[in-house]
């Protein structure tokens, strides 16, 4: 029943087209600075969709998506850096006493290779990690904690390998992208439009996936992993698949992020950003695809707004948001919309005299049951 509601409101083609149109026309009425911010948020939204596939649909909570985001971002950054230095060693390598380009930087001289690796590399690492943990039926909570520890380890490693990764400073100071000046207004507009198009395609692609039988199977894995085994499914394959997919999407988001922000550093892939990513999804509404997009844009807009006006209180606000959303609004903003929809329905139903018990029961079950 709830599905039907979603379909009527949020998967409405008109609404989708409308939003897409606004986003595509945004360059006309936003200043360069604001457009750049919006583009960054939309890049985050791509990651949020991937994270939601994993958490909202499959029930696996990863607190380590910063890593995949970072890997994608670093891939792109390495290419940009090499193009900026014109084939010479990046400055941080010379200080660290490197004589020539390290082997792992070599493929990134070619933009196409960099872009492909930016998706494949995070996906491959997600696959490996997912395979090792899910295969052994490591409990969901364990996985979450492990994913967080992984962040710690990767960040430590990235900071430690200063000669290769640029350490805490990360990689920055880029000049051109495919020969275009990367910071110029027109290039930025084009990159923004690319981001919008990529986001729309990712959204549609994922929607096709979850609306199909796969979506139902994933929900099955989320709500009753063992039960799915006795229906003949191998849940770890599905989990690994979704984890890999969402790792790839995070990498994609990371690449678009670097193009627009012009820097990637280990702080962006650390524990706090990784948890914030989860908040985007939680606030927007897990288990819906539009929710994370809204959540990502909303939280980041709020963050920018808040920290411009009241930097000291942003932390309080962020913390409170977490508590409120998780405790009182487990389905996020989308759940709220749904609730309003349902109330309206209830009234309709009463009027037409059909017995109400079904709906009531379904909503109470909704509240009790949850995604953990």
């Amino acid at each position, binding site marked *: 029943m709830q599905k039907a509601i979603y379909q009527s409101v949020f998967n409405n083609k008109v609404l989708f087209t409308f939003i897409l149109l606004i986003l595509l026309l945004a360059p006309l009425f936003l200043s360069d600075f604001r457009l750049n911010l919006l583009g960054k948020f939309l890049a985050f939204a791509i990651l949020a969709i991937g994270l939601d596939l994993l958490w909202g649909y499959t029930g696996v*909570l990863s607190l380590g998506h910063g890593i995949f985001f970072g890997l994608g971002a670093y891939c792109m950054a390495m290419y940009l850096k090499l193009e900026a230095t014109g084939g010479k060693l990046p400055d941080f390598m010379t200080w660290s006493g490197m004589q020539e380009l390290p082997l792992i930087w070599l493929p990134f001289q070619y933009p196409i290779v960099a872009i492909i690796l930016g998706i494949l590399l995070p996906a491959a690492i997600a696959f490996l990690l997912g395979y*090792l*943990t899910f295969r*052994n*039926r*490591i*409990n*969901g*909570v*364990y996985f*979450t*904690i*492990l994913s*967080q*520890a*992984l962040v*710690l*380890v990767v960040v*430590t*490693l990235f*900071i*430690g390998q200063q000669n290769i990764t640029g350490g805490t400073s990360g990689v920055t100071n880029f000049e051109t992208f495919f020969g275009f000046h990367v910071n110029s207004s027109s290039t930025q507009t084009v990159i923004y439009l690319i981001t919008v198009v990529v986001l729309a395609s990712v959204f549609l692609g994922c929607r096709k996936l979850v609306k199909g039988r796969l979506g139902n199977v994933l929900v099955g894995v989320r709500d*009753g*992993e*063992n*039960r799915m085994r006795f229906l003949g499914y191998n849940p770890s394959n599905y989990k690994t698949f979704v984890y890999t997919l969402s790792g790839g999407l995070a990498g994609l988001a990371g690449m678009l992020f670097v193009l627009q922000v012009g820097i990637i550093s280990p702080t962006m892939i650390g*524990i706090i950003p990784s*948890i914030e990513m*989860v*908040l985007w999804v*939680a606030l927007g509404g897990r288990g819906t695809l539009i929710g994370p997009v809204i959540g990502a844009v909303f939280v980041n807009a709020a963050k920018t707004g808040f920290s411009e006006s009241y930097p*000291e209180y942003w*932390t*309080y606000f*962020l*913390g*409170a*948001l*977490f*508590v409120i959303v*998780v*405790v009182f609004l*487990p389905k996020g903003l989308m759940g709220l919309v749904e609730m309003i929809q349902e109330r309206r329905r209830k009234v309709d139903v009463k009027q037409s005299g059909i017995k109400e018990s079904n709906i009531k029961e379904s909503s109470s079950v909704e509240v009790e049951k*949850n*995604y*953990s």
Partner: protein
Amino acid sequence: MTQIILTLFNGLSLGSILLLIALGLAITFGLMNVINMAHGELIMIGAYVTYVMQNLFLNYAPQQYFDLYFILSIPIALLIAAGVGMILEFSLIRFLYRRPLDSLLATWGVGLMLQQLARSIFGAPNVGVQSPSFLNGGLEVGTLLFPYSRLFIIGLSIVCLVSIYYYFYRTSSGRRVRAVMQNRQMAECLGVSTRKVDLITFAIGSGFAGVAGCALTLLGAIGPTIGTNYIIDAFMVVVVGGVGALFGAVAGALGIGFFNTVFEYVTNASLGKVLIFLLIIAFLQWRPSGLVTSRSRSLD
């Protein structure tokens, strides 16, 4: 030879610190299945309690009794952290039983707010706590020196471990707690107030975080982010040890402490961290649910 003894001692010492911070978690996470990410901030509360006690003694107590502040801080930190834990349980956690992942996110939010609160009260910079004079120096055995503060922490973690064991396995109130955690409905039928037990158990877990915070003032910085430095290590201990097993937590803490020290000694601190993580992943391939597990027949 001395090198080996020293490494063993350092491993034991690190292990005892890990155990101390993980004990509370072993209770809240292990027994109650609540992932309390604010555990680190409860540690922080314990540390700040020590700082406040020190200042009180500096200002109001005669000089010769100054060292007493630390001894007094331990029970007070326990009580205050337990009190905060109670408030937390009452206002938040009780809505989140059976939703472990949600409890993780919500308590992370609480942790953030507590950190910012500490920043507002005590300021962002670290505060200094002077170690009591009786913990200065160390025990000399031949050419080796075992710092008293380290020995004290080892002792403290043993005391905590024993008292937790005694409470859960030797008192009727502790038995009630275990009964509730094992079979909630059944315990309820037998007239145990599960709400009360939840509250008390969570408070105990939180209280021991406070004690850990108190002990950490001997070793490191006391600031708003003290908890975040330790929280992940603490969770690793519980994951490796196996949920719901005190013995597992002990083994996990000592194991991680020992290997970490060895790895760090042989390579360096950064690489040591990476190696420990890989070791844990490898270990979980072998024992997916930790060292000590209980088998159950239920389907999820």
